[in-house]
């Protein structure tokens, strides 16, 4: 059975651990994955006029981040049916439920111990998701407490 899974991210490699553990858990079945980044939408009319989500995503994703996504995609090639990154601009529960239904999401995976550290204009959607009474699962991983890794591929590994 094909399930669509939503995972909130902050475009930092460590947040992709949720994706890694989620796919590890669901190895036996096929899943479509939507990574969701939450950001306040711009209030400038010119920016809205030339609004292009692909450009925003491209600007946010570092080359290391893309490498990390490639690594995970390669690892779970057979169980990953489709994969995309979406922007979420809503501010309240209804907006999130709208997004949830429009994307046909079946399940949300959230990090348990990791707090999203969004970039400028972004926000952490996890409280909103938890309030929205949608079905979610939390995954946890042991976090390295060292501060060496600012945003390195290492964070995906043990």
């Amino acid at each position, binding site marked *: 059975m094909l399930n669509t899974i939503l995972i909130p991210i902050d475009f930092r490699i460590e947040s992709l651990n949720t994706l*890694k553990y989620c796919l590890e858990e669901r190895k036996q079945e096929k899943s479509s994955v939507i990574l969701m980044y939450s950001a306040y939408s711009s209030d400038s009319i010119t920016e809205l006029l030339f609004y292009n989500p692909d450009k925003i995503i491209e600007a946010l994703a570092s080359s290391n981040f*893309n*490498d990390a996504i*490639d*690594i*995970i995609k*390669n*690892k*779970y*090639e*057979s169980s990953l049916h489709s994969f995309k990154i979406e922007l979420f601009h809503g501010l309240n529960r209804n907006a999130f439920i709208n997004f949830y239904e429009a994307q046909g999401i079946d399940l949300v995976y959230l990090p348990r111990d990791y707090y999203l550290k969004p970039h400028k204009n972004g926000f952490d959607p996890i409280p909103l998701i938890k309030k929205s009474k949608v079905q979610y699962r939390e995954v946890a991983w042991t976090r390295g407490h*060292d*501060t*060496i*890794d600012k945003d*390195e*591929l*290492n964070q*995906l*590994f*043990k």
Partner: protein
Amino acid sequence: MSSIRKISILLIISISLILFFLGSSVYYFLSNYSYADFYKRLEARVSVAEKYHFESNQKDAQVLKNIRDEHLELLSNEREYILYCPNANSMKQLADTNSLPINFLTLVYTQQFANFQKDDIFYHGKKRETSKGFYFVVVSAKNYYNTHHLILLKKVLLAGGFISILIIIYFTYLFSNYFFEPINKIITKVNSISTDNIHLRLDENKKTVEINRLTTTFNNLLNRVEIAIETNKNFISNASHEFGTPLTAIIGEADVALLKDRTSVEYKETLQKILNQSERLNKISQSLLFLAQIGYKENKLNYAILRTDELIMQAYEIMNQLIPKNNIEIDFDLLPENPKKLKIHGNKELLILAITNILTNACKYSSNKQVVVSLASTNNQIVMIFKDQGIGIPESELPFIFDPFYRASNTAAYDGYGIGLPLTQNIIKIHKGELIISSELHKGVKIQVKLPVAEL
């Protein structure tokens, strides 16, 4: 030819050509116009004369005469002919008596009216037929305008053109000097920089963007050269230190042994120590040779398609023999499903050497604490990550760790001579890979090795 001269010649030629075309077109069109205009004036006189002689009564004739005198200025050498010609055969005689060109009269005869020029005299004639035969009405005059004004114009254009070319030559010389002066300055400055004063830099010229870019490029190059020279100096001092330590030990041992007579056991001991130090020296020189060879042997290496996971396993087995107490953990959790993405094009021995070098360092400087080796692959790169929990490298020393014989300041307690890491980096480099090192003092070192996936 220098570019100053090239640019000036090109400029002068192109501007002279433009001037030439401008001047000649002015001259050509003006002279054309002056001819047409002069014939028109003759024509007007002919038609007045015709009216005066053939169509007017006494009163009109007076008016026409007045108009002609008042409004039609007298042209130089203006002459008016009203010639009666009974038939075509008498034209020749008519022409001779009035000293008119016969060709002109024939032309008028056949075409009713005609323009003609002989030397600097212009003619306009018209044939008028009457019942008694026909008349030629002819006006001739010298074209004063043509003879004088056009010659003046020609002179002005030639002189003006010549003077403007001189001015252009002067300005191109001035401008090219102005623009090339900074380049000359750069050349003198760069020439004055040698290995002794490599710290000198070019002054940046903010006025011209291109020159500024050139100077910054030069300055960046100088920065790199300075670093390279610095590295070289470091290498020599480090190398002499590395060679010096065992030599001092050998000399010291020998000196002490020779102070007085010793027992054979003591001699044996001394010789053993000397042997150990010599072996160490031998090892250093051999590894140095190997390091140097990798650089130029690149083309002779045997390349094959290899699987990185196998390489890591083989290196792991070697490590088990070298350091049996090691605590290496291999993490293949993120291995790609498609084994093709683990394959690289490379030399097996060298790559295993590189991996064992990294692992030996990791085990050595962490006193056999846990070392994790992870392997993963993106679509075009294989990523190997080595994490240890050792003493780390001070951040300020990170830029130098790839210099041969360089040893970080906190490694005094550990045996080694600073060849392993540069060797590893050279091996990764000739495989077109990347070695990224990050570290925090006392916490450990993380090494990322990225190698390109083989294209099958």
